[in-house]
């Protein structure tokens, strides 16, 4: 009786449907990580730890009433922007990029915080001005987006800035940014591309060409893409079998447990395995869309939509880059790749989704 009550209390703000989708993806993650790390249990335990921490965050956020979330938007955003500026001024440099802030006891990457803070801030802003939305509001919201993105691009961290840019754009789009403006921007961008191209130095053009044609630098950065495509392609219909991928186990694949984990999975489980994995992603995204559609307030709709679409963008950019249709930008495969920070941010996002879902359900009943 008592136990059931505790269980009920524990589960009340969680969404079992979304939870089962996430659980399935996380199981895949542990399975593939074991193979990708060459049978190293430590990697698997490490990822289990990441998942545990992420779930604590998910549970806490899911249980927070929505107005807490709304109230925290401005402080979190201001804090994040402050830290981004601090990084730009005196951040730690590692691997040629200035991304980290030394807090004394740990190194912190403020751009990760902004993945949540930016859509939160924008959704809060639109909610506040919901009744009287004019072009000016869209401009201000865009500025709220572009300031952190510009700082992150300069670090440089192309992958993160694309994801944050996308999450903010989804808020703008769902908030009803006029089609004319969207199309106008697209046309302007397309028209100015040749001029920009002519203004670039030869080496800059070369670097851009490299993004699209990896074979130009087959031993350098292009090596990753080429080896990734070989792994995916050689997997065939049914895959080479679990722990049997030659590209993976003979070290040809770079970043096997992180950015290129999709290649490991594809090599060992083949096309059929990929259909299954894409199905799992589609399931989670579909559930996200349902939650978005049922969200009761402007703020929650924008927030849920942006989180769902950003999650999809994450997955699409990663799989696209591994399979060679997108340039290589450092984006991990969400929920599958090894990594504590991205796991935390993602599960926090899903916590927000569950909070949106369960709190309005409570309101309804």
């Amino acid at each position, binding site marked *: 009786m008592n136990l059931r009550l505790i269980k009920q209390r524990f589960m009340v703000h969680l969404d079992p449907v979304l939870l089962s989708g996430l659980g399935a993806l996380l199981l895949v993650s542990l399975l593939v990580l074991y193979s990708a790390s060459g049978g190293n249990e430590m990697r698997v335990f490490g990822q289990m730890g990441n998942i545990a921490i992420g779930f604590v965050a998910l549970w806490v956020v899911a249980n927070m009433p929505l107005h807490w979330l709304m109230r925290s938007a401005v402080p979190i955003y201001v804090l994040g922007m402050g830290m981004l500026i601090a990084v730009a001024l005196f951040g730690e440099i590692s691997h040629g990029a200035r991304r980290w802030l030394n807090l004394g006891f740990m190194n912190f990457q403020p751009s990760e915080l902004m993945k949540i803070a930016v859509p939160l801030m924008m959704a809060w802003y639109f909610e506040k001005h919901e009744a009287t939305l004019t072009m000016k509001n869209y401009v201000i919201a865009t500025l709220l987006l572009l300031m952190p993105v510009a700082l992150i691009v300069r670090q440089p961290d192309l992958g993160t800035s694309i994801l944050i840019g996308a999450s903010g754009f989804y808020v703008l*789009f769902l908030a009803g940014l006029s089609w004319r403006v969207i199309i106008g921007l697209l046309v302007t961008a397309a028209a100015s591309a040749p001029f920009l191209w002519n203004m670039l130095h030869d080496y800059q053009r070369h670097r851009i060409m490299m993004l699209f044609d990896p074979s130009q630098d087959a031993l350098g950065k292009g090596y990753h893409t080429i080896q990734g495509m070989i792994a995916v392609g*050689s997997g065939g219909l049914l895959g080479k079998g679990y722990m049997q991928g030659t590209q993976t186990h003979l070290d040809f694949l770079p970043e096997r447990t992180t950015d290129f984990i999709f290649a490991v999975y594809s090599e060992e489980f083949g096309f059929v395995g990929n259909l299954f994995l894409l199905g799992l992603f589609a399931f989670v995204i579909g559930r996200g869309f349902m939650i978005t559609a049922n969200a009761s307030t402007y703020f929650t709709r924008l927030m849920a939509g942006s989180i769902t679409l950003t999650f999809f963008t994450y997955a699409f950019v990663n799989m696209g880059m591994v399979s060679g249709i997108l340039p290589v930008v450092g984006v991990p495969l969400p929920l599958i790749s090894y990594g504590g920070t991205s796991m935390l941010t993602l599960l926090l996002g899903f916590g927000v989704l569950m909070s949106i879902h369960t709190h309005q359900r409570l309101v309804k009943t």
Partner: protein
Amino acid sequence: MTPHVELKNHQRERYLFSLRLIFCLGFVGVLMAILVARAFYLQVWKHEYFDTMAESNRIFVVPIVPNRGVITDRNGTVLARNYAGYTLELTPEKIPDLNATIEEIGKLVEIKPKDLRRFKKLMSERRSLQTLPVKTRLTDEELASFAAQLYRFPGVEIKARLFREYPLSETTSHLLGYIGRINQQELDDLEKKDLAGNYMGSDYIGKTGIEERYEKEMHGVTGLEQIEVDAGGRAVRMLSRTPPQSGKDLKLTLDAGLQEVAEQAFGDYRGALVAIDPSNGEILSFVSKPGYDPNLFIDGIDTESWDALNNSPDVPLNNRALRGQYPPGSTIKPFMALAGLHYDVRPPGLSISDPGYFLLPGSSHQYRDWKTGGHGKVDMFTSIVVSCDTYYYGLATELGIDRMHEYLEQFGFGKHSGIDLKGEVSGLLPSSDWKMKRYQQIWYPGDTVSAGIGQGYNLVTPLQLAFATATLANDGVAYRPHLVKEIQHAANETQAAPEPLYDLHIPAEHLALVKSAMQAVVKPGGTAVGAFWGVQYPVAGKTGTAQVIGVKQGEKYDAEKVSEYNRDHAWFISFAPADKPRIALAVLVENGGHGGSTAAPIARKVLDYYLLGKKSKPMQKVEEKAGAEDD
């Protein structure tokens, strides 16, 4: 004044939001479909292609370089051999900061400035992804200390290699040549000949000399190992193996002892010597002085040593025996005498009167004999013994240049001898046709006069003159001069003995006359008596002097007045024993002055060693006054 703002309709707003959300759903659907299509394209449509790529990633074909053939002389003395050693090699493409890496390596093993210079030179001429040695011949200590640190240096490897070594160094430099690292041009050439596969693991190729000429035989056939490797190139397991076939060993006709004696006999003089066994064309000695150390070239010579060799006024890299062209001077006279006999222009008993000069009919230009006042009455025998110029001025005029050309060509003048070395030059045996073609000028009678004593347009190489001497020694039966006696073969195979090239069918009495005159050259009254005093075997010879600069009418050549490099070249041709020749040779001493005083003593030492087994001291370069007792 508040601006007019329209309050939003909640229903309408929800509707608009739903439209946007549906659009997003469609967007997601389309991108998902693209991912599925891409996965289908890679994994099903192009699966075979990528599967092959994965296999070739995994399976590494390792060439196993065959051992290069060893070169020995006719008695089994090793002239070129291989020994195992370790090198430290870099792949520049795999190293981001080459200078820093080399500096780091330098802390562990000593890298000499010479190694660095060589490395820089190799960098400029390397093939892509080729490994370049930064340090060769590691000592055991260096090997041990570096092997432990190797993991710190990606792109740096320790390789076990067979090194080529030429134990006799300078002594055999011009005939053996050397091997060196394959350059881009040679690689292209191999690709053209479809041999690139066989050179997959080879770093070296014969560059000059025997090493170049017999590259095909000595290289061998490259073996293959199929190995499963990981991305770091570390072998996981071997899948299959085809063993290499070693290159064939070469046994040369050369006598290494004789070669050393001949080389030392030159002392400080520049020049060349070619000694041939007249009975079969085997080259017993092949010297070009100065030589160079061929071992310097193997791993790529450093710029400083190269400049020293390349810019030396003594041109040590020039193979004088093969490629040096000099006027034959009086060494042409025995062959001219045979021509005179052949065309019956000068019967043996006919004597001319030599006043010390020769006049063409209707001209007052004096063609001077080397001996002021002349030799008096001179017949053919005496003309060779005392090297009478006037006799040959007349003989040449009577023969005419075209008959001279026709006859002398048979002895190989003006033609390649066909020796088994690359880069032979043909010298020059002039004719009226040649002059017309070359200069669009008719042949003047005066041209013939100087041609008669081997001056004028005539040019020969030491090899050609040795070949002609050998043919004369062997009574007109010519054998192609060659350096390789045997190419390693299976026990049941036999290698054909050399066949004569041709027989000139010189009448015995003609040969007897010329040969006896040549024997008299080394006897009292002859031009080479000094060098052959007390000789213990019958020997035939002829001295010669090749002018480097012309002497004006009415002037006398004075060795002291001309700079060293403009002094006359000295020649000596010889064969012995005169009655049954076992060796025929030609010696050239550049700027050596008179054949009898510098070239003949070298020949004496070589003949003494070969026929009697006697060694003697090298020549000292002596600044002697131009004497008048020899030509």
